[in-house]
Structure formats: structure tokens, C-alpha cells
């Protein structure tokens, strides 16, 4: 029995398969959140929903069938998985963290110091884009996806990249008074530009770049070239949709903050 989805070289079948590693990850997150909520004296419904959305995104992305299709059959589904794991789940999970938990982080100097350095916006955008490039490099994908541990590593790198990327935008700590709404918007716009490289590479490479998907047992309704183009377009359009939605929300909050204060100022949290 497999514990994590990886490329198997077997013909695709709609027969359900269990991936215990994904269930353990989900269970660990749920247990962690329940304990966090108890320690925090309860969590508002909005944050609970954010947590549910974040965990559901991870579960759907990593478990059968999406996880299995993404690992060994379709680059386009691999990209959907990336969007869920790196761009959708992390901000929801960060939004779900209750206020007292954020405050407790600031009381631990070592953690606070590490977070301060790692989540500087310029560092975060470089780490995120570096990991995105690395995990979409054909040699890395083809070298890792046929192993459960390799596939797991890519998924964990995506989660890490997502948390690092979204931290400056969503997280309460470390407080960055100068990184207000205008800069957050600019940061996200920069990110939409940065993912263009992978998009261009996948969409406009005439030949399939990933042996994993080119030589996978075929899925009847899509060729390997179409699949790769779909992957590139999904990265651009799907990623753009997520990022521009976030930009829209930030603009809304920025507007509300301006209205509330009556004068331009940086965001507090």
C-alpha cells in the first residue's frame, strides 16, 4: 500500500486507493488546531471556517484522486495541486490562527527572530519563487515524482513556499508597520509577474518537458502537449485568480481603513 501519491506507471483507474500519509497529515493539523483553539479560549467562527478551508484544500489536493493524477498522470492536475497547496491552503491556515496564538509567538525570541528574518517580504518572495522554479524544474520533477518520498518532498516544499510567501501578507507577527496595504498590494502584483516565467516555459515549450507526464499511461481525452499547455495556463490564470482575489480583498480593507481613519496611514496588523 502506498502512503503518499507518486508516479506508478500503471494505467489510470477510477478505483479508490488509500494514502495513509495524507490522512496522518490532516489528522495532525486537526489535532494541533483543536489544542490551539482550547489554549486560546475559543476561536471565532470565521477563523474556524478558514481552517476548515485550508485543511480541505490540502486534503483534496494530496489525496486520491487529485493527488494520484497529479503525481503520475497529468501535469495540469499537478498544477491544480500546486495552486491548492501553495496558494490557497497556506493563507487560509494562517488566517485561522487565533489572536492569542500570534501573541504567544512574539514571546519566544528565537522563533520571533527567525520569523522576522525569513518572512521579510523581499526574502519571502525570493524563497517562494526559488522554490516554485526548483519544484517545476523537469529534472527535479522527473527525478522525484516516481518515489513516494520524493513526491512528499515536493508537496512539503510547496506548503513551505506557500507559508513563507503569504506570511508577510496575512500573519500578525512580526509586526511590519511599513508593510501596509499599498506595499502588500505591490508585493502580490510582483508575485503575479514572477510566476510568468514558469507559465511561459510550460505553455510555450513545443515539446513535453516532463518525462513523468509524457511517458505516463495516457488519459484518453488529452495529449501530453495539451496537458502541459493547460498546466502553464492554469499556473498563470489560476494563480492570477488567487492573487488578484487577494489583491482585491486588500484594496477593500485598505479603503475601509482609509475611510475609518480619515487620513492615509499604514495598516496596524
Amino acid at each position: 500500500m502506498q502512503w503518499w501519491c507518486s508516479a506508478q506507471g500503471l494505467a489510470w483507474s477510477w478505483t479508490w486507493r488509500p494514502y495513509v500519509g495524507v490522512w496522518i497529515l490532516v489528522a495532525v493539523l486537526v489535532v494541533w488546531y483543536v489544542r490551539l483553539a482550547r489554549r486560546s479560549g475559543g476561536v471565532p467562527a470565521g477563523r474556524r471556517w478558514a481552517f476548515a478551508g485550508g485543511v480541505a484544500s490540502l486534503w483534496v489536493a494530496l489525496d486520491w484522486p487529485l493527488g494520484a493524477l497529479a503525481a503520475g498522470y497529468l501535469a495540469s492536475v499537478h498544477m491544480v495541486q500546486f495552486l491548492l497547496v501553495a496558494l490557497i491552503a497556506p493563507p487560509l491556515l494562517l488566517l485561522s490562527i487565533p489572536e492569542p496564538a500570534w501573541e504567544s509567538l512574539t514571546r519566544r525570541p528565537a522563533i520571533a527572530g527567525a520569523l522576522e528574518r525569513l518572512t521579510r517580504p523581499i526574502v519571502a518572495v525570493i524563497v517562494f519563487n526559488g522554490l516554485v522554479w526548483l519544484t517545476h524544474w523537469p529534472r527535479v520533477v522527473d527525478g522525484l515524482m516516481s518515489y513516494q518520498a520524493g513526491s512528499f518532498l515536493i508537496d512539503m516544499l510547496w506548503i513551505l513556499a506557500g507559508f513563507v510567501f503569504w506570511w508577510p501578507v496575512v500573519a500578525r507577527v512580526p509586526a511590519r508597520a511599513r508593510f501596509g496595504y499599498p506595499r502588500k498590494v505591490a508585493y502580490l502584483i510582483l508575485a503575479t509577474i514572477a510566476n510568468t516565467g514558469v507559465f511561459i516555459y510550460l505553455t510555450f515549450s513545443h515539446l513535453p518537458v516532463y518525462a513523468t507526464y509524457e511517458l505516463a499511461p495516457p488519459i484518453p481525452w488529452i495529449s501530453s502537449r495539451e496537458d502541459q499547455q493547460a498546466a502553464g495556463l492554469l499556473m498563470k490564470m489560476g494563480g492570477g485568480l488567487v492573487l488578484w482575489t487577494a489583491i482585491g480583498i486588500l484594496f477593500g480593507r485598505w479603503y475601509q481603513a482609509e475611510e475609518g481613519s480619515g487620513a492615509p496611514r499604514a495598516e496596524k496588523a
Partner: protein
Amino acid sequence: MLLSAAALSAGCNAGAGERAAAEPAQPGLRGTLLEPSWDKPDFTLTDTEGRAFDFRAGTEGFVTLLFFGYTHCPDVCPIHMANIAAVLQDLDYDERSRIRVVFVTTDPERDTAPVVRAWLDRFDRSFIGLRGTQEEVDRVQAALHLPAAIRQPSRPGPLPGAYAVGHAAQVLAFTADGRARVVYPFGTRQSDWAHDLPKLVAGWRRPEAGRGAASGG
């Protein structure tokens, strides 16, 4: 993309004197070069229109890619066919018109002529599909130093009676001078075909063409 000679000829039942040694691809080709090269075999099977197809005569003067497989094949066969078809679409007309792709079914029981035709048409309508009795197909494969196809026990599944057929996974490439020169194992990518097919077209012409004919094996 290299494959060892041992892997290519596993199960091969050709005579030792005829058996060719597969060498690593020479610079310039990504497939595995056959040295010495082989003669194009002389056999006749039935095409998907029900007509007798003389392989040697019907492909004379063309670069010919010959593959043995079956239409229920879940992986190797459709991947080879799809990759070759995709790259053929990229070639210019002159190159493409010098190439023939011939598919011989190793599962004549299920692969009736209409089934083979419909399956090949998914990839390229110009692909030639051939059928014969199991004995005829086995003989042709033996002549090409390929192992005979073997029916394998079916796995439990939704289709009762479904079975798989173990068969040689490589595509044999014959150049226009009628020699088998290169073998393309499973794992050959579109980039490999795109690299090699124009070279195969340009590299070995028919002797009577008298232009750039390379020495045969």
C-alpha cells in the same frame, strides 16, 4: 536515452549468427544503433482494409517505423504511437512524406481490422495497421530478433476476460535503403523523435538514389 543491448534483446530467439549487437547510440542519433544493421524482413500480413500488405515492397524507399503492440495496451503502445504522431505533425511535408509507420497487432483475437483502424486513427490516419495469425506474427517477430508476444493472466477488474499481452516494447527504425538501423525503446521521448527522424530521413537514402547513401551493415 540509452538502453542496454541485453534489455533490448531479452527473450530474443534469433540465430546467433544473425543476431545483431545493439550498440550505444552514436553521436548524432539518440536511438540505439544496430551494428551491423539488419535486412528489412520479407513478410506479408493483412492491412486494415483486408488487403495483403507486402512489408518490404510496401515500405520500399521509406524510413519505416515498425512496432508490435495491441490496442488494449494501457501504456507502451499508445505512448509510442502518440509521441511519433505528434512529432510527425511537426516535420515538414517532404520529411513526413518519406516516413511510414507500421503497427502490427500482437493480439489478433481482439484486434480486428476495424478495431486496429479506429485505434490508429486516434493518432494518425496514415499509420498502417497489420494483422496476421498469432503464428504469422510470431514468425515475423522472430525474423526481427524480437521475442514472441505472450498473453498474460488477466488482473481482477471490471472487464471479465480482459487480459494483457506482453510484447516487445521497442520501435524498429528501417532507413530508406531497407536496413534496420536504430531501435527506440520505451522511454523514447518526443524530443528524441524530433531529433532523430529528420536525420534518419536524410542519412540513408536508397542506393539507387545515389545521394549521400551511407554504408550499410
